[in-house]
């Protein structure tokens, strides 16, 4: 009997490895859709009983919130200060935001603020009036906190083979402060990330992430990799940060509730206060949309939705194109931080996501990315030069879903090539390796990344 069970477990584990397929970034959750709806699909193996929650979350994600005086019950409480009115206006089709074009108020782009020094629980210190991000919109009768615009400076360079390139360096301008000069501030611009595959990242065990960390760079490869430790309001403890450009959120509930509060002005059981201290603005002119404005169950549906949105399948033309691209990806040591493969926890709360072999191409760790990308605004243990490795799955579908190809935390890179050229700090040797490749090989590597 024992022999039999061993045989079975060996068989089972070979089966898992045999099923591991680079074409299925999300394992069995992977969806087969390369259209505009590529990021909007529920995990392929999701239990149909869970669809009601999924679509309830989907509806809430797309809902335009209205002001509290509205007749629409249950979807009110917008603002009074806000960045946008729905999740989907920034994460359009569950995809990615871009920096605003000239003269437009942004969707999918915002500026974080803080004062120098540490705030509660070691996080950024919010500004006493403006809180921790600039609200660029406001209800009638209130003023937006400021106007944000971007100017670009060209940074020119060339490859060793003589091909020249020109990058855009953004200069963020904040004017028309609505509630007085803010004084000395730390600022950092962010674009909205695509939200598919988040549950699979959630299902990666902390140990798997920590196993990759090398804060002292003991292996001397020039790449350290640190996990951010952040305060989690939902767990009421410090925990490893996984989400956000600086890995400053520990759980998706923290992330979603924080976005509802900061971006839309919707309070929740986790964040019962609005993201600014203009109490007089609130109480008289702007009734609350109920306290909290989004109920726990709705918030949980949104989180469930985010967790079960699956990454789309990769789009390699054939095995050879995958192999040759992968070799270049490894030669340039992109894979040191963009770790291709993980196995998710067996005991994860959503069965469909448990025990999957996934290909997110991230280590979820912080890395020094050099002066060029530095925002000089620490966030918990992430310093001003560190950023979390973003996942690469689905990156090539962003132009189809969102009709732009802007990358990096503030959307400065206009395509994958520019994003690579912005890599510095720990990633500088990888960037140099990329630049030294022959033009044809560079093209092949870019095609590989686009196909992930």
């Amino acid at each position, binding site marked *: 009997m024992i022999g039999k069970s061993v045989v079975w477990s060996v068989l089972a584990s070979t089966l898992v490895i045999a099923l591991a397929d680079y074409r299925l970034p999300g394992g069995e959750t992977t969806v087969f859709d390369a259209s505009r709806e590529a990021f909007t699909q529920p995990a392929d193996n999701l239990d149909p009983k869970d669809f009601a*929650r999924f679509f*309830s979350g989907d509806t809430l994600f797309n*809902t*335009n919130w*209205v002001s509290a005086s509205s*007749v629409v019950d249950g979807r009110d409480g917008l603002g009074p200060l806000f960045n946008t009115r729905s999740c*989907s206006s920034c994460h359009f089709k569950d995809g990615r935001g871009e920096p605003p074009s000239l003269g437009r108020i942004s969707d999918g782009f915002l500026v974080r603020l803080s004062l120098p020094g540490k705030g509660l629980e070691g996080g950024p210190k919010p500004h006493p009036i403006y809180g921790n991000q600039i609200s660029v919109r406001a209800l009638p009768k209130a003023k937006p906190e400021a106007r944000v615009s971007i100017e670009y400076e060209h940074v020119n360079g060339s490859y060793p083979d003589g091909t020249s390139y020109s990058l855009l360096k953004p200069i963020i301008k904040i004017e028309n402060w609505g509630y007085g000069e803010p004084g000395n501030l730390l600022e950092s611009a962010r674009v909205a990330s695509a939200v598919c595959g988040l549950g699979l990242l959630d299902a990666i065990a902390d140990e798997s992430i920590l196993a990759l960390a090398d804060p002292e760079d003991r292996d001397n490869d020039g790449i350290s990799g640190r996990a951010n430790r952040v305060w989690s309001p939902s767990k009421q403890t410090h925990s490893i940060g996984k989400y956000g450009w600086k890995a400053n959120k520990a759980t998706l509930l923290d992330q979603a509730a924080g976005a509802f509060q900061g971006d839309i002005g919707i309070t929740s059981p986790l964040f019962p206060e609005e993201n600014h201290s203009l109490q007089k603005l609130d109480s008289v002119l702007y009734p609350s949309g109920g306290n909290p404005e989004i109920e726990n169950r709705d918030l949980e549906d949104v989180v469930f939705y985010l967790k079960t949105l699956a990454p789309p399948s990769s789009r390699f033309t054939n095995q050879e194109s995958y192999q040759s691209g992968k070799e270049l990806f490894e030669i340039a040591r992109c894979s040191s931080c963009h770790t291709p493969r993980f196995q998710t926890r067996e005991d994860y709360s959503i069965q469909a996501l448990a025990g999957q072999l996934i290909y997110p191409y991230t280590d979820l760790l912080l890395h020094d990315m050099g002066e060029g990308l530095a925002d000089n605004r620490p966030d918990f243990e992430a310093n001003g030069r560190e950023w979390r490795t973003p996942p690469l799955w689905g990156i090539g579908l962003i132009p189809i879903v969102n009709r732009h190809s802007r990358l990096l935390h503030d959307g400065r890179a206009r395509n994958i090539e520019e994003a690579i050229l912005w890599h510095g700090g720990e990633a500088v040797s990888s960037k140099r390796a990329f630049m030294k490749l022959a033009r044809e090989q560079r093209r092949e590597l870019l095609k590989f990344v686009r196909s992930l």
Partner: protein
Amino acid sequence: MRFRNICAIALIVAFISPAQSDFEPFPPTPEGQIYSNEVAFQALSNYTDIAWAMYADAVRDVVRFNMAVYHFRKDPGPETLQNAKDLWIEARKTYGKTECFRFSETPIDELGLEILINAWPVDESYIDYTRDDPDSGIINQPDRYPKINSVYLPKLNEQGGEANVSTGWHAVEFLLWGQDLNPDGPGNRLWTDFTTAKNADRRMAYLVTATEVLRSHLVTVSEEWNPANYDGGSGEFFIRRPSRIIRSIMTGIASMAGREIASERLAAAIRSGSQEDEHSCFSDTTHNDLVANMEGLESILFGKFTSKSVKVVIDGKGVIDIIASADKELAGRVETQFRSAMMHIEAIPKPFDQVIVAPTDSKGRRTIDKAISSLWEFVYSMSDAEEIMELNTRAR
């Protein structure tokens, strides 16, 4: 006929039947294939006949509705508005049947028009004033949206958020009925909104334009199925392996029944408990949508369709017959489960938004629960069928 010919070509090419002097309408069923090619061929060509007849009906009714809107523009008044509303309801019912062609790699999705024809839910304040904001919407912001025309309006669809719907059935529905502020009935927009109210001319232009855009989009989809239109050009998108076409159709039926009707329309609506989380929330005609969707599915499953004029009567092989050629017993189960789901859906009390807010143990809510579970049983059997027919191997 476009789809029929191509299916025939595809079947012949796929199996390279030996050269024969006699005309062979379909290639023989290859060794090892579970379902019959003869039945599959007949069912697929019948499917295209039904599609063309159904879309032709939908176009006819949307044209009638469009005429009613013109009539209202020419002679605005409570009767002409009511007439337009009545014809919207009729046209919507006819269109609802064609939703069975969604998720099946057919023109409605392949042309990317579904989102412009049927986007939902709608944020009212993106289009027009609401009770809370008298100045909101495209209609009331001529500075920001100077033009309301058939080129510009579709471009505004889903701009800056997925609920920012500017075109399609539900945008037009909102223009005709207005917000549903009435817990016991549909929205009640005054006809004077189109004559004397602020921005009335822009509102009328919007209504007319959105109706025309809807009509023209539906015509475009419909023409893809037009047998007289076959030129071998754009029809190329049907040149696929027949097994893939069958799988797409079966997956489409299952997606429509499970993900769309059972989950998104029924389960999510009762979960939220919000009266406006229903499909046709302004006119309170969600019940019609549900029934029409099921009627469409019934047609392609069983291969039967009668046009509204009763001039076209189609009675041939359906998807169920392909399944039966593989497994008779399973086909019987699929049929029973579908009939039961359809019965429960027809039994959901009207208006749907009253059922959403009714207590969980009320009769209406229990009917919805039964509808959901029987739809899912049907979907499971459909996926069993795909498995038995060996269609579920994904082409990667």
